[in-house]
């Protein structure tokens, strides 16, 4: 036969209201919680406002421009990107970018790996590994108005990237903040 279940006497420890209802209401705690909730709702409002403004990506404040001193490269990109979410780095190249019958563009390794380059539009004729990056070449006959890098960041954090026209020596180094 199994032993009986352990028991203990019922103690009248729950505070009562109007000496009648044993409820254990802690109104002081609840008032502190309501104040905390008000702070949380203010934070939610701020988060929404920041998101609409684009601080978390995909908004007006996220759009960034940069160009080299001689205007050979004009770049538009999103300074705030999101983890595994598509984003675009667009490079507008001036006619001066054409050298020796072709356009050569060097991009840093960070565009390939942490920023997760998926494809390049238009596709380059050749791509070859160069020091700390990749060198792309397009024939000048099809000089593109813009070269787009469709990226999907594979890690969260702050990433710096560089694009360069090696034959002109012009380069841009910018920063993208990737949210998790």
């Amino acid at each position, binding site marked *: 036969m199994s032993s009986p279940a352990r028991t203990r006497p019922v103690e009248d420890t729950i505070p009562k*209201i*109007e000496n009648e*209802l044993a*409820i*254990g*209401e*802690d*109104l002081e*705690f*609840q008032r502190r*919680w*309501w104040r905390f*909730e008000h702070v*949380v*709702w203010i934070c939610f409002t701020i988060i929404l406002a920041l998101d609409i403004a684009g601080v978390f990506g995909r908004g007006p404040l996220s759009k960034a421009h940069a160009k080299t001193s001689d205007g050979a490269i004009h770049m538009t990109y999103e300074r705030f990107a999101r983890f*595994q979410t598509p984003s675009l780095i667009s490079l507008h190249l001036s006619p001066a970018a054409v050298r020796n019958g072709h356009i050569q563009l060097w991009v840093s390794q960070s565009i390939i790996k942490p920023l997760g380059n998926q494809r390049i539009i238009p596709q380059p004729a050749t791509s070859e590994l160069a020091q700390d990056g990749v060198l792309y070449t397009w024939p000048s006959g099809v000089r593109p108005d813009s070269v787009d890098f469709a990226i999907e960041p594979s890690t969260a954090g702050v990433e710096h990237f560089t694009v360069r026209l090696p034959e002109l020596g012009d380069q841009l180094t910018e920063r993208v903040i990737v949210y998790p």
Partner: protein
Amino acid sequence: MAAVFRALFGYCFLVLMVRVVGRRPGKQMAPFDFVLIFFIGGLTLTAMVADDRSLTNAIVQIVTIATGHFILTLLRRKSKKFALFLDGTPLVLLSKSKWYSETLGNMNFSTDDVMAAIRGKGLVNPEGASWAVLERSGSINVIEADDSK
């Protein structure tokens, strides 16, 4: 490893969100409250799963959430302060023909919500209820006045 942290974060975030959004589950839930539960749950799911749709990921995350839930339940039993933080405190909404307007307002409850609970008890007016209490679970318990029996 990332799956465990994603699941833990998602679980803790949801617990906090549901706690902040308010106590209206079960009987007190209006149809639009259901939208909140499904929407928040669905959106959290996409971030938790990410690009890993494997069975391994699902099992690891379910085990993580089950463990997290067990730990929360344990802490809730061991610590009164933690229980207060997690569940809140029972609150009086009505007492002997007095509405507790501060509580009703701050909890975003209307007198209609309390009247629904009073009617559910078979009473036809608030005078028939001695007390109405919003429990930690979100349900409203009504205690009949002696003279209404």
